[in-house]
């Protein structure tokens, strides 16, 4: 799967889709889901939670292990994708549709990569 050109990426393998200057959807990249394997549980924050760039805001579990998911932005959780709570396998099936949270009031961002730079970055990991 190629990484969509309209998204931004963190080096901890989250994607960010900016909806406007201060609102974004955040999810896990295809590389991350394929490294983690079949996901069976996702733990999401609650609406209204403040999340901070570079800090963990969710976790996902495969049958093998639990992994933290780091927030690429600082802001407030405006919405969570409740569908994932009952169907975490959607993250494996369509990682770029399976957004975790919608973040509003974004005040800071991590250094994010564009699709080409992220492609290069994961090539360096293999």
């Amino acid at each position, binding site marked *: 799967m190629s990484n969509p050109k309209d998204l931004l990426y963190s080096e901890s393998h989250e994607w960010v889709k900016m909806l406007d200057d201060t609102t974004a959807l955040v999810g896990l990249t295809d590389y991350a889901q394929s490294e983690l*394997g*079949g996901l*069976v549980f996702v*733990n999401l924050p609650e609406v209204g939670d403040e999340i901070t760039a570079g800090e963990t805001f969710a976790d996902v*579990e*495969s*049958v*093998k292990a*639990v992994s933290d998911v780091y927030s690429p932005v600082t802001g407030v959780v405006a919405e969570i994708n409740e569908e994932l709570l009952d169907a975490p396998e959607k993250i494996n099936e369509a990682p770029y549709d399976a957004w975790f949270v919608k973040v509003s009031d974004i005040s800071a961002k991590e250094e994010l990569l564009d699709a080409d730079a992220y492609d290069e970055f994961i090539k360096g990991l293999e």
Partner: protein
Amino acid sequence: MAEETLKRTSLYDTHVKYGGKIVPFAGWELPVEYSGSGVIAEHMAVRTKAGMFDVSHMGEILCKGPDALKNLNMLLTNDYNGMHDGQARYSPMCNEKGGVVDDLIVYKKDDQNYLMVVNAANKDKDFAWVKAHQSGDVEFEDISDTIGQIALQGPLAKKILLKLVKADAIPEAYYACKFDQDVAGVKCMISTTGYTGEDGVEIYTPMEDAPKVYEALMAAGKDEGLIPCGLGARDTLRLEAGMPLYGHEMDDTVTPREAGLGIFVKMDKDDFIGKAAIEAMGKPPKRRKAGLKVTGRGIVREHQDVYQDGKKIGVTTSGTHCPFLGHPYAVALIESDDRDPGAKVEVDVRGRRVEAEIVKMPFYKRGE
């Protein structure tokens, strides 16, 4: 562990060829899963069709001589009297305090020749232990590096093997074995002592011939849905089937009775190492294994504290999402008077209390 000390089974290249994701495990480089399938699909293949595991890392120790039986009965808690040739019997092996040195399977070839199959991580410790405690006319020989082992598991496992062998090459009973069987031109031992809760066989080969047998089985199982399976599925399958794993449900500080293995401790036989200590602790043991079904939101893993009515009563020893049952389960060692099925507990999952209920084990039983 430094990389250069890791060992490879003769199937290493075969795993790479089939897309195995190689990880270090008990001193070996082994596949945790395969890229074309993954843990969940491999688990489901074993429950519904067939899966094949390389378990060549396991240790094999020969016990031979006129006093072989006497030594097994002293070293192991189970009773090895009355076995017929071609029979297998599981047992914990205890230290003087009743803690478990290892759990293992003994296969009887004849009165003077037994094969002990032990956990890879414990093999050197076990060999030193049996050598230090042997008595009389007996010889123990570590042949681990010369033996490959393939576990073919699942409802279609025997059907697949039958394409390569005659019907009488496969033991009819569970916990039995047949020596010197021809599989794809290789002289093998075929046994039925599976670790998945499913029907199946293990095929012991000379180490260097394991790839030949493996590929012959892959070809024979192609139309039956057979896929290679890794260590990940091996662990989820054994947990779902309620089978203990050394280093989790038991170790040098846990007695077999505490680990729910009391049925394999035969107090009415002559002395064995650990007998006095186990007797002194009485039964039922204060601390005991319990199966947990997670009723809250979350996945319970090993080494998480278990609470009941706000009080810590123990710790989990294994836990994961069980793919066939589609639900998370865990095993714990707990001290509580309220531990019958239905009793409520909570588990601390990384700072979050997750509700669970004590349930009967095994979680999964074939045919139910």
